């Protein structure tokens, strides 16, 4: 609002000294008005700070000021200008109704200012309520919510399996395996040749050996024993060892055969 000393009159008295908080250099107008949340806020400020009587608002001056303001705001914030324009229209309406003599039959008509006062007071209360809300302690600022860490272990129940199902599954595997079975020629995991060398080396060191001593029953299992036996037979066949037995069922001895 363009407020100059010549325009301001409070209760009929021209105000030559502007209150400090009301004086605005014209070029600071936009900044000044932005500190108000709208026409109600501005009007409330004027009323509360300066004991401005709504009845005594100089309507003509106000209108001029509003129009100047609207002109200025057209370029910047047209929607805001409309709000102020509406307010000025309302003030002028009130003023004109106050000035006109009331016809007798509507003598008990409400004071035209009553609605504006109601709105002003409601807005004032909301303003304070907003300030109060803003100052209330809030989570993340004045309140910190506990959020301790825990190892999240999903409670997933494994599906249950009965023995019968397991047996059935195994049967199916076997059935399928039979259908797909091929005769496989695999590389011998245990080398007869290797065992031949082992037996021969043993006999070289120990000289004569009992047959049963050549078998290691502790480790290796059956395949190893079989391979070991095959190795002995192979050694005998190739004439590298001599196998002797004094009588049936007596101890069998093995020894390296020497060239004769």
């Amino acid at each position, binding site marked *: 609002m363009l407020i100059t000393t010549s325009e301001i009159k409070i209760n009929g008295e021209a105000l030559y000294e502007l209150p400090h908080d009301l004086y605005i250099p014209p070029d600071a107008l936009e900044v000044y008005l932005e500190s108000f949340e709208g026409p109600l806020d501005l009007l409330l400020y004027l009323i509360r700070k300066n004991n401005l009587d709504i009845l005594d608002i100089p309507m003509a001056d106000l209108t001029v000021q509003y129009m100047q303001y609207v002109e200025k705001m057209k370029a910047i914030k047209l929607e805001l200008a409309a709000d102020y324009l509406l307010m000025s229209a309302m003030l002028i309406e009130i003023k004109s109704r106050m000035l006109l003599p009331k016809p007798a039959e509507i003598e008990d008509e409400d004071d035209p200012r009553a609605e504006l*006062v109601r709105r002003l007071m409601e807005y004032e209360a909301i303003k304070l309520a*907003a300030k109060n809300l803003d100052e209330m302690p809030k989570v993340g600022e004045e309140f910190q919510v506990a959020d301790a860490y825990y190892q999240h272990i999903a409670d997933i129940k494994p599906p249950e399996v009965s023995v019968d199902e397991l047996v059935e599954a195994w049967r199916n595997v076997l059935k399928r395996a039979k259908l797909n079975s091929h005769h496989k020629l695999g590389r011998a995991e245990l080398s007869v040749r290797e065992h031949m060398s082992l037996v021969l080396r043993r006999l070289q060191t120990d000289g004569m050996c009992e047959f049963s001593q050549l078998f290691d029953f502790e480790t290796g299992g059956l395949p190893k024993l079989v391979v070991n036996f095959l190795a002995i037979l192979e050694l005998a066949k190739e004439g590298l060892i001599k196998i002797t037995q004094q009588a049936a069922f007596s101890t069998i001895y093995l020894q390296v055969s020497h060239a004769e």
Partner: protein
Amino acid sequence: MREPENITEMKQIIEAALLTAGQPLSLDDLLKLFAGRMERATLRMLLDELKQDWEGKTLELTQVATGYRFQAKPELSAFIARLHPERQPKYSRAVMETLAIIAYRQPVTRGDIEQIRGVTVNPNVMRQLIERDWIDVVGQREVPGRPSLYATTKHFLDDLNLRSLAELPPFEDFAQSEIPLDS
């Protein structure tokens, strides 16, 4: 896993659940902990006991709109806040006034808000409040245009440490001196 057999064990379960939740847990949430083997009344009693157990400690058990939560004692919060120096930016007066109108006059339309504030509502203002999950649309007023009716959320109450809107200071408290019609 063995079901709890005594009060102490039950309280420990409730306590651990609340401490690790990071958000309020309702009575229904807490009942789930006991797989239907807990009465509501008993649960309330245990929560009361738990609250007393924690008195004088660093955390306190509080009830807010959506349930129960542990939070740091307010006097400690100022120190904790130092860990996060970037504070939440302040909301503008327009945002706070809009929020106050919705809080005290809900459910309201944008038109209602404009009527009270005397200015058009900036859509940005509503967006900020909706994004914060402080307000939402609860219906439409059956008038031409069927404008949306806005109300505050439970999350708003949680954030302000309130159990219900009734805990807000009454609106009458903000009424100022009458503006005289005749001077």
